[in-house]
């Protein structure tokens, strides 16, 4: 569904992504893990078209999209839940969801109802300004807003960041549920254990390069991953 070939991106003279190659098949959950500053957010931004690339190709459904404007990629079904939720703070919860459906026609009442079933708390707060919600509620809203666009591939940037453990479990359950409804998922996480546990496959990004890839299970068992990201001491 998505193939990324030899992608590079930079901030001024600093290279943030170097020769990144990966692919996502329809129906998969892919986890992208890596430490702070590895370039995970940069990669998702490049895929969404809000971060310029200096080399490489991005194919979505076989079609090259690296020159397509960000807002038009959403129409193709490539939708991102950005790092830090980025809800429209002054707009109400319901308005945030309606803006999420920007690329869609008029028939969105069913989608709105479905979001309110998935996230009952959003229904309770539908007229509240999004900026007044808690971090967890804002994350639910950001995911709901993205779902309103009817994504075919959903990019999630650290959805569990800063949330209480109970909420984190909930978020991962929701991600699994989203996939079961036919949406392909690429999730960036620092919560490596939980992300790899629900992922079919995973990639490890270190200082802008893909250094490891494999099934979720094999990466959890990989000594390098265990040592670097799971805090497990491995004897050489």
């Amino acid at each position: 569904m998505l193939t990324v070939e030899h992608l590079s991106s930079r901030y001024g003279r600093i290279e943030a992504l170097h020769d990144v190659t990966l692919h996502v098949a329809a129906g998969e959950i892919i986890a992208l893990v890596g430490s702070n500053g590895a370039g995970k957010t940069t990669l998702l931004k490049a895929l969404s078209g809000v971060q310029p690339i200096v080399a490489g190709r991005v194919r979505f459904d076989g079609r090259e999209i690296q020159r397509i404007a960000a807002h038009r990629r959403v129409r193709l079904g490539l939708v991102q839940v950005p790092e830090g939720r980025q809800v429209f703070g002054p707009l109400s919860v319901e308005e945030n969801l309606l803006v999420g459906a920007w690329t869609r026609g008029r028939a969105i009442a069913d989608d709105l109802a479905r979001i309110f079933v998935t996230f009952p708390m959003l229904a309770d707060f539908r007229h509240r300004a999004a900026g007044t919600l808690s971090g967890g509620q804002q994350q639910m809203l950001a995911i709901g807003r993205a779902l309103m666009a009817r994504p075919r591939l959903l990019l999630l940037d650290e959805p569990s960041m800063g949330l209480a453990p109970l909420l984190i479990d909930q978020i991962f359950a929701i991600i699994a549920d989203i996939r079961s409804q036919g949406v392909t998922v690429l999730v960036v996480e620092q919560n490596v254990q939980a992300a790899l546990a629900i992922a079919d496959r995973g990639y490890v990004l270190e200082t802008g390069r893909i250094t490891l890839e494999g099934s979720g299970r094999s990466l959890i068992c990989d000594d390098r991953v265990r040592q670097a990201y799971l805090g497990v001491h491995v004897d050489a």
Partner: protein
Amino acid sequence: MATALQILFSGLTVGAIYALVAIGFTLVYSSSEVVNFAQGEFVMLGGMISATAVAAGLAPLPAASLAIVATVVTGILLYGLAVAPARDASPIVVIIITIGASIFIRGLASVGMGKEFHTLPPLLATPTLDLGGASVQTQGLVVMAGSVAIVLTLWLFLRMTKLGRGIRATAANRLAAQLAGINPRVIVGLTFAISALIGALGGILITPITLTSFDVGTLLAVKGFAAAVLGGLTHPAGPVLGGLMIGLLEAVGAGYISSQYKDVFAFVVLLGVLFLRPQGILGGRAVERV
């Protein structure tokens, strides 16, 4: 000697126009961070084109419609041809571009419509009205009522329509708006069109009172900008409050001090606010910008 009531009345009348200019500033700024100093030219074009068309024999309503359409087209062209191509430039460069564009628009207006003063007939047949012993122009009431209607319509548009939501979403978070599939250039172009529309309406409303000429835009831009800064560029009620305050201040200054220094007050306010409270009276809290 004008009575206190007359001073209040004329202050609110011109203040309403400053408020409309200030709304144009904040609307464009909130979605694009562009400070459009050609804002005053929209008011000039609205009044000048209407007056020229009426002088050429057109009835007031078609003349006003023509002026509105021409001004909105100017606003869209200003964005599309001058501002949008410079989107990667620094804010100061974009400001200079809008100042250049305003000089260009002013030049075209003086060539096409002359350098003399123009006027329009007032809307109501009775030109003056007795208000608590003071005689005031009915057109002042028309200006105030019209401005209230414009502000309410804009408010409803921003809150009740999909495009309005898109403008507010882009103002709140441009990145998230793009990720929701919104084309920010369409939104910013739309805010230029709306602020041109509002400016043109203001120009048409005020011309029967103040007259107009090709060069009224500069001072209007400065005063509207002062009003926007005074009210705070980040609060929806800011421009209205700022505009009315500057209008009142001018009227009081002209009535009790000297009408010669009328235009100085806006500059003094602007400097004072920038020194003492750069976020404006209402600015500074995390609130909606449009």
